[in-house]
């Protein structure tokens, strides 16, 4: 009646089935073994960090100029806008051989190319290496201020948002110097530079001087899509010293400017994004000397209010922590409740000052850090619809913020 029933009743069906089964199994095994597109670990160049500079940035020395001709290619379209650099991981395996044996070591080296399309430069750089690149372990993208000022952030990071090999946890960073120099920096700890930068950013929980809470490529991409201010951590290299601190701000993909460490810390207070912070005040009865409060717990509530046409925000903050350091000497008795209460009030004042400092920094740059527009959109959608078109330029610089801070010192530490 049909093929199956024919096979089922035929005398040769058994052998046919066996043969067909064998052929099928062997054929499938050839394709699903995974050998046809295998790539061994040692066959790949692990890119740990990416640096993006302006193409003609820092080409002073003659040697550099000679190199530049090699770090280039004929472009059918576009200009030489960017210099793309990769920090590549070099793994040297251990070798046994008696006295001549060598220990396994990890080092990095940097290669570059110039062009406009990141993808085109990436492929051109394959002319400088012997293995393909592997991007799943990129830790950081360092972008120079000069590079980003040319066409904005979007053309620089588009490839990294689009390519599926890139992770969303990659940390973008901005430097006022040269990104390539940062990639060439050898951390004293011996770690590869890319890892060093990413791990340093992870310390944002205890260091509110850097905006690590929204520092990944995913968050950057999300902020761009939401037309929110992009906040990227600033990194600087001076000699053999590296330092992360402060924030670079981007509005609609364009570089707006930097805010300093103090304003970055104030920004963290808007949404309680830090896990710990050190807040210093002058001793209540001994000005010029310092007391340090160590923040342990932080709750915050930013609320938009509408009064006719006027929009203002209140920021209610509750903080708990310890007395971390006392340089007031005998002028301050930590066991005295009244004295301690004075400190709580002074810490609260300092937090308010810090918040308003950050807030006014943003207002000066006509750039909402995102918290205010987000709250208004979420809680007062009708008012947001009314003001959203000119929020950053007209509304945000004129709104008021009323902070109220309640600080509780729970512990005075291990000494009176």
């Amino acid at each position, binding site marked *: 009646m049909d093929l199956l029933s024919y096979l089922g009743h035929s005398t040769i069906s058994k052998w046919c089935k066996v043969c067909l089964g064998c052929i099928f199994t062997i054929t499938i095994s050839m394709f699903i073994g995974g050998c046809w597109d295998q790539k061994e670990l040692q066959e790949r160049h692990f890119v740990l960090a990416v640096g993006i500079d302006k193409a003609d940035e820092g080409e002073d020395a003659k040697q550099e100029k000679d190199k530049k001709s090699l770090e280039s290619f004929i472009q059918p379209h576009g200009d030489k806008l960017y210099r793309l650099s990769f920090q590549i991981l070099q793994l040297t395996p251990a070798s046994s051989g008696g006295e001549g044996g060598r220990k396994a070591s990890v080092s990095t080296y940097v290669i570059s190319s110039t062009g406009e399309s990141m993808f085109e430069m990436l492929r051109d750089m394959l002319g400088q290496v012997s293995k393909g690149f592997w991007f*799943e372990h990129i830790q950081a993208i360092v972008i120079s201020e000069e590079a980003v000022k040319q066409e904005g952030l979007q053309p620089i990071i588009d490839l990294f948002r689009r390519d*599926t090999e890139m992770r*969303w946890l990659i940390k973008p960073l901005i430097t006022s110097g040269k990104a390539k120099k940062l990639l060439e920096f050898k951390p004293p700890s011996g770690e590869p530079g890319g890892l060093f930068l990413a791990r340093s950013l992870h310390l944002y929980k205890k260091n509110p001087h850097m905006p690590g809470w929204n520092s990944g490529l995913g968050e950057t991409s999300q902020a761009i899509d939401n037309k929110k201010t992009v906040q990227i951590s600033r990194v600087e290299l001076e000699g053999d010293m590296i330092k992360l601190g402060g924030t670079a701000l981007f509005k609609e993909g364009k570089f707006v400017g930097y805010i300093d460490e103090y304003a970055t810390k104030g920004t963290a207070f808007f949404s309680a994004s830090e896990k710990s912070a050190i807040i210093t005040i002058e001793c209540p009865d001994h000005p010029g000397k310092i007391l340090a409060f160590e923040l342990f717990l932080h709750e915050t509530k930013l609320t938009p209010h509408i009064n006719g046409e006027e929009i203002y925000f209140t920021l209610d903050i509750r903080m708990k922590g310890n007395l971390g350091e006392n340089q007031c000497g005998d002028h301050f008795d930590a066991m005295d409740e009244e004295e301690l209460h004075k400190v709580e009030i002074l810490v609260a004042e300092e937090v308010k000052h810090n918040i308003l400092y950050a807030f006014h920094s943003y207002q000066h740059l006509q750039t909402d850090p995102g918290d205010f527009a987000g709250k208004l959109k979420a809680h007062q959608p009708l008012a947001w619809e009314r003001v959203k078109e000119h929020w950053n330029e007209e509304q945000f610089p004129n709104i008021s913020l009323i902070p109220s801070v309640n600080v509780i010192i729970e512990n005075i530490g291990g000494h009176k």
Partner: protein
Amino acid sequence: MANLEVKKHMSAGQLAIVVFVTCIGAQIMLTPRGLIAEVKNGAWISVLLGGMFFYTATYFMLRLGKQYPDETIVEYAPRIFGRIGGGIVIFWFNLLFYMQVITIFYGVGRIITFYMFDRTPPEVVVLALLVVCTYCALQDWGTILRIQQFLFVIAYSILILVWLTSILNFQPENMLPLWPLDIKGVTLGSFTTWGMYSGYECVLLLLPLVYRKVSLAKLAKTVGVAFVGLSIVFMLIIVLTIGVLTVEDAKNLPFPSLIVIRSVELPGTFLERLENYLLVTWIPVVFDTLAAMMFFMAEVCMRQWRHADHRPILLMLVPIIYIGAMLIDTPQVNEILGKFTMWLGLSFSFGVVPTALLLTWWKKSKVGKDCG
């Protein structure tokens, strides 16, 4: 020896599992972008409304099926609509499964090659999946049902567990305003969720297998539980997608419900690129939906052409399915086909089925009067 896998009967609970498993498939990855772009923050309400709408449609189907015990739509459609009309309805019914199957194959091939095997042609991925699904659909209903029950417990729990890791990046504020300004858009958006809930039409084919003693009320209740489960799963996915990515970001990503776990950093583990793990757990979910739908297509043809075995027909359908999936060569064609399938499904559920029910009631009341 008797074929023990030929399933003659199933319980109401098993029918509910089949409905659940057939509905949740590829569309949980493919549909959310369009829905979120259309309805924005109100997408979660659209999903809930969609659940209610499509449960109502399923209830009509159950009522219709109960009017014709021991018969599927293939047998009673010609009696209701006439030979030609019935033929059109059966073709329509089967076309629904066919359109869903080819769009799912296209979508799955695209996602898997894009995120996992970027140098492998989608045709190869589709072919491999088609072979596996065909092997499953060639079995008798008893085996397929057992696989569905097994995957219902295993695959779905793992999938949801992996998905829930995105809670680590969930920002409740992204969900606000919870109550949308555009109520009309939300209501219309609920029909867009047909792509998510589609598959419930299988009750028209499976109802004769459910024990006759199971009452309509019990069936409605049990299938209702399946729809509650579906609504919860779909709502969870939409809420997580918006809560993690925001509406604006989700609109710009081809598969936001997959990307939702891309930023998750599991502390203390070496696991990265979690979207690949999500894809791996999603494949069995797609497999059981496709296998069931392919079986249903072959079963409809078998009954229509009065064959005794669905297997030769299924083998005949395989190249047609493959060619159909390969003909969708761009996302634009896929989107147009998706819309066409949605309208095909909506008009079948809310046009053909209620009409069939009304005609049945009318004919039965006429018969009663004539007798009297």
